[in-house]
């Protein structure tokens, strides 16, 4: 990427996408030629419920500007209830970050079903715009933590 300071800040966002729903939506979004920002680097996981808050923290501490976890809509989880359990964990994580003033808004959880490619693209737009607004993740450059 160019180091040109005048260039608009382009965040790097780690995406944890569920294999069954969100990743399917991502595929359809692509094949429908929906245009959406490039900032999310997706890791395809089997279930949103397998995303450990530690993975989220690790991404933020390593310098990701945001993290998006996306999975099946509530009730649609291929593994019955993984997304419900994830919802609680991410709630705890975001509460901790919020309490400590650590920009909990950098962590996103979204439900995107397999037939929701427009929502997938919209979510990409939404999360990218929101993280852009937040600016670079200060943890990314903090060497002393």
């Amino acid at each position, binding site marked *: 990427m160019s180091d040109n300071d005048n260039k608009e800040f382009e965040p790097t966002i780690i995406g944890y996408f569920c294999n069954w729903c969100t990743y399917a939506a991502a595929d359809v979004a692509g094949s429908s030629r929906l245009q959406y920002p490039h900032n999310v680097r997706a890791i395809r996981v089997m279930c949103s*419920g397998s995303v450990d808050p530690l993975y989220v923290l690790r991404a933020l501490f390593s310098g990701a500007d945001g993290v998006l976890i996306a999975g099946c809509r509530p009730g649609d989880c291929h593994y019955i209830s993984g997304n419900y359990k994830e919802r609680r964990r991410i709630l705890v994580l975001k509460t901790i970050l919020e309490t400590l003033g650590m920009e909990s808004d950098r962590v996103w959880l979204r439900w995107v079903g397999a037939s929701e490619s427009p929502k997938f693209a919209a979510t990409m737009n939404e999360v990218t715009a929101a993280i852009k607004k937040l600016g670079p993740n200060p943890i990314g450059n903090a060497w002393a933590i």
Partner: protein
Amino acid sequence: MSETKRKKGKAVLVVGGGAAGIRASLDLAEMGHKVYLCDRKPSLGGVLVHTDRWFPDNHCGMCKMLPIFSRDDKSQFCLRSGLVHPNIELLPMTEFDSVTGEAGDFTVTVKSAPAGVNPELCVGCGTCNSVCPVEVPDEFNEGLSQRKAIYLRTPWLPSNSYVIDWAACTKCGECVAHCPTKAINLSPQGSSKKISVGSIILSTGIEQFNTEAASQYGHGRYPNVLTSIELERLLSQSGPTEGVMLRPSDKKVPQSVAFLQCVGSRDMKRNYCSFACCMYALKEAMLIKKLYPQVEVEIFYMDMRVFGKGYHRYYEQAKAAGIKFTRCRVPLVKQDFQNGDLIITTAGEDNSLKQRRFNMLVLSVGQVPSPLFQVLADPGGLGIKLNQHGFCQTGEFTPVETSTPGVFVCGSASGPKNITDSMIGASAAAGKASHYAISVEWPENGGPSNGAGTDFEIDAPAKTAVLLCDCGNQISSIIDMEDLLDASRALPSVVYAERAPYLCMEDALASIRPKMDHHGANRVVLASCAPFLTRRLGASIDLDPSLIQVVNLREEVAWPNQENPVAATDKARALISMAVERLRLQQPAVMLHIAMNQSALVVGSGLAAMVAARTISDFGYEVHIVSREPELGGRARNIRTTLSGSDVPAFLEDLRRTLANNPDIHQYKGVEIATVEGHAGNFHVILTSTVADPSGKDLATSSLEVGSIVLAMGADELRPTEYLYGQNDKVITQTELEARLNTGDLGDVKSVAMVQCVGSRDEDRPYCGRICCAEALLNALRIKEANPHAEVVIFYRDMMSYGLMEADYKRAREKGVLFVRYDPERKPEVKAEGGKLRVTVRETALPRNDGNIVMEPDLLVLSVPLVPRDQTALAAILGLELTEDGFFKEAEVKFRPVDCVRDGIFICGLAHSPRGMAESITQAQAAGQRAASIMAKGRLMSGRTVSEVKARWCAGCQMCVDICPYNARVMDESEGVVMVLEALCQGCGTCVVSCPSGAAGLRGLSDKQIMSMVDAAL
């Protein structure tokens, strides 16, 4: 027929690839049969792919149909994207043509439509579509949007290549000129081929009622009159409005929506009920309410047929959500030409006429038999018999068998159905069809697995090849491929990187493994297109799939970034680097299995238990029937005949004899289950006696080792507490009436009143008894038969004469049975006066009079529901959950209706929900098939991505055990640590997160791999 005498073919043909066809094919394939699955359309899924969510829980869940065991060689992605199974050969755009031979040895000629696009060459780039000048209405969106003449049938690219609509194609040749892989041929020949199969399953489904035959509703003339499927598209994100409900005329969100029920059903031409429309209307209404709470939604209906498991509760939820219900059949629809609103006349409280205006109107259109049935019925075809309505004729005791031996039917082909019942019928049909086909031999390693013999040594250092696909120029025109090559080569562990114009072409694929060997590479990154597509490619490389990583450069990077090549190249670099990093830490898969005990336990004594037992033993497995009752037969012993006039005692006797004479079937009477330990494949069951004196010979004192368990316990008729039951001997239940009819001691009965929904559909028991309306119809008809002058009045709330039973409802009316609807707020009043019963019911058909019908019947018959026995203890023993109504919970309401959440346990009959006899038999056959199916392989194989425990780290807290939805984690009490039953593990990884230490891990996607990928991404 005995197993040895039966002829067996090499495969099974499944005609029709909707939900039922997929289910039947998967069930057969899992039993080791080769399956041909043909469909007229270019893609599978039938009506399901048009809809996103289904009643009664508003959830998706097609993927839950997919096999639980040995899942690695099969689709492991959304079924909308396609079906992959090593034993299933898909024949898209292919129709049944003709057949010769007989059961066990059919030769079927199937006819494939001319394929203008060669699926082997089509890479799905879509160039053809973009240059095609023809636009026609898109049937995927029910004509609410346009498509080209060369197009994708559904938006889910991975499953299907482009197809040509010959009716629309002008053969201008633009697509041919532009196709980069020369995949298009505008004058292809259709082809036909002969396939040799032992049996055939018809899952051809039904057609949607053509609204031209109901022109009074204005569909097709008035833009804002939609069919229910059209509404599905309007509510779908993959639909023409991206899920925003915009009415067609002015593209505004309608503020009022009305549903008209029974369009194209329950009339003289279609004397049946379409089964699913009440529920799908409720579901659509609920979706609208959820998305647009301010929108007024009203349903105009005649009877709300909420007869299924959980349906009545759903209906109540809908009412609570503010959806309005008005009972009337709207005669016609007018349009306000000023604004496109629809005006209908509806009934007020007192049958007065009310003009109503709605912004949008939805027709709950019925299901009609497919014209294809006529072809199948043709003596030159399969010669199957059709019933009076034009559906495949089946028998009450042979619910999935057609009149032609070796030909079976499931789904709506034998009468309208919903998803649940289609799934049940499909498994039952698969079980039957299975007996006419040989099993494909299961290889030693547990299944056709790719590259299993050529795995690399564990712990050998990672040496990775990176292969970049240009996809013609689809990828390379956006992404700087040379830059990507350089970046890839610089990554740790990468031994070589190169690009190919088309990685998916035969020659490119064939060269991969030799080149890898040449470079000493033992892992490969394929940077090409969607992983679902590339799966096919991966399968043709002779390599353990665990050592292949796919980067989706096309759909994920190039296509969404057509205007931003620099960013796309950046992203591509990151994704490749992540994949390389993941592979660097990846070890070859170790597939594990658990041995299977090939015998089954059936719990229960009724019809369902007996049928399930026979179904399993038909596969040659040992069966143990365990019941608390002293003899088999259950409630069916009291039934002489059914609405279709079947001879129940003869069937029961035959069943009883078959079970008794089979040395592989062991009956344990007067016992119950004390404990169940173990898991699918190896259940250890201990039985205890329920009888005080343990000297009886039949009493089991020993334990049983079984591989699967079928729950088929019965239910009991409710003892009502209302309407003087138990206080007056003229007040009896339907079962008691039936007993009297059977013994003929009904006496000189001249007047009979029946009250429906006694003790059901109320606060205490908010479910429909499902079979009580059928019982009432049957008994009313029998009374009328015996004495045509007898007065028979049925007081009902909603006649649940769903599906083909509608004809019986009509028959009863024609025979003079009077049907009087009562309002649950004003229940019938019953008094005993001077030796007479006096029944007073408000006559709702004459509302203005506010009068009552007063009867002094000789008998008052109460239609009470079946109530499940208290199964709390058994549920706890089995580790299963009960529904709020006390029935056993299935793994998934729609797609896995006979499976339990705990693998290896299946439910049927009244343990699942109240069901009619044919329905119970079907479900028992399905449960039996499923139970036998998991035993078929003799062992259960794990997938490649499974969880594991580092024993030294495990503190034994068992949070993972509690959290695992598959009971794949168990406590090893002797070691104090948790262990994984790999074959049950589905690899979801929830356990890994629940474990605060590093004890739980996911083999194939470890913490370390993920964190390394994160670093690689940044």
